[in-house]
Every structure is written in structure tokens, then in C-alpha cells.
């Protein structure tokens, strides 16, 4: 099997791509994509660390099950908020949603 460190490197790469998207994109749906990518990076990290232990630990996998389910809920609520914002503003450009700015 591949050394587990490769999985950590890949996880860091996914996290970096996600942060790049969070900081540069303007569409709310792309921001949601970035959040999902960061979730995936974290899940990959947790599974790899659970595999690292001797003997391998199944609690890490249970934690990832919970994490994936929570990510699905977050996506559902986030998309509902995006729909609502589109109905109110007829646009989903996050840089233009400045109504709450003082």
C-alpha cells in the first residue's frame, strides 16, 4: 500500500484548493463547492489517521460517517439559503449582497 503520508499530502492539496475557491469566487454555489471540498479533505485526513493506528481504529470511520451526514445536511440548508437569496436579489453574487453593511 501507498505510504499514508501521501494521503495527508492529497488532503492538504484539497484543503488548499477549497480555500482558494472560498477567497476568490463570487458565485454562492461555487463557495458551496469549496466548502464541500474542504469537508472531503477533512474526511480523508480522519480516515487516513484512523488507518495509521496499530491496530487500525474503527472509531475514526464512525466519526467520518457522522461527518459525511452533517455535510449533506449543510449542503441542503445552504442550497435552500441560496434559493432564498436568489428570490430576494435575483442574483447569487456574494460580493453584491451588502445589504447588512452599516
Amino acid at each position, binding site marked *: 500500500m501507498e505510504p499514508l503520508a501521501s494521503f495527508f499530502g492529497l488532503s492538504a*492539496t484539497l484543503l488548499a484548493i477549497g480555500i482558494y475557491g472560498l477567497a476568490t469566487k463570487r458565485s454562492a454555489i461555487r463557495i458551496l463547492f469549496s466548502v464541500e471540498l474542504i469537508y472531503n479533505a477533512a474526511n480523508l485526513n480522519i480516515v487516513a489517521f484512523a488507518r495509521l493506528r496499530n491496530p487500525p481504529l474503527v472509531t475514526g470511520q464512525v466519526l467520518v460517517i457522522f461527518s459525511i451526514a452533517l*455535510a449533506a445536511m449543510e449542503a441542503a440548508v445552504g442550497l435552500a439559503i441560496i434559493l432564498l437569496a436568489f428570490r430576494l436579489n435575483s442574483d447569487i453574487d456574494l460580493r453584491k449582497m451588502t445589504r447588512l453593511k452599516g
Partner: protein
Amino acid sequence: MPDIAFFGFAAVTVLGAILALESRDLVYGAVSLGVSFLGVASLFFLLDAAYIGVFQIAVYIGAVVILILFTVMLVGPAKGEGPTEFRRTALFIGILVAMMLGVGGALASPSAFSTNQPCTPECDLAQFSQSLLVTYSVQLAVLSLVFAAAVIGALTLAKSERGTA
């Protein structure tokens, strides 16, 4: 050949992630995101976590990507989303990403974490289900309640009010 498998899946994951953020059309972006999730699921299989991989495929590709596709069809792209502006933020993000990749590369040096042992019976499915359904059964029940609350909340948010809209 796990090496080739790992590099193939890693390439699929990273390319899918980049395409999801950079593709011109949001629909293609959503599909690329699904491909990236599929790559992560394959990596879970490589890590001897088969159930997590199946769960990832079912939840992410079966539910999240389909939900995103429907939303994209309803909403459409942001008006005037042009090519990425290269400004100070982009430079800052570039430096940050480079630093993170440096940390990842340092971790990925062959000396670090190289001891991994074959999967013993401790990490098989029976042990996993024992842990999920006996040790963490209360947490699982609470999770389902949270799920119900999230779905009701999402429905309430997205419901179109006939009077105002």
C-alpha cells in the same frame, strides 16, 4: 498496483476539484465536483474503509450533487461572473496555497508515517458495525434528529410564499 491506483485516484480527485471551481459553466462544475467526490470515495476503498466509500458515493453523488444540479438549473450563474481578477487577494491566496502545499510535501516525505500494517480483523465490517450501532447508537439517533431538523429547516427556507413571491 496500489501505487498506480493511488496516483490515478489522486489525479482524478485534484483535477475534478480544480475543474469544479474553474469551469465556465456551473453545470459542468457540479459534474466535476461529483467526479472529485468519486475519486475521494475510491481513496477510501484504498484505505480499507469500504463502507465509508459506499456511504460517500451514496450521499455525495446520489444526494448532494443532484441537489446542486437542481439548484443550478433553478438559479443560473451569477450575473457578470467574469474571469478571475488577479488582485492582492489572489496573490495572498497564492502564497497561502503554496505554504500549505509545502506543509503537505514535507509531510509526504517517505520517512514520515511509513509504517503501515496490513488490515487486521480489527478493522473489518463486523467491528465497524459493532462500533456504529452499539457503542455510538445514541449519537446515531441524535444525528437522525438533527437530520430531520435540517430538512425541515431547508424546506421552510425554500418554500415559496404565495403572498409575497
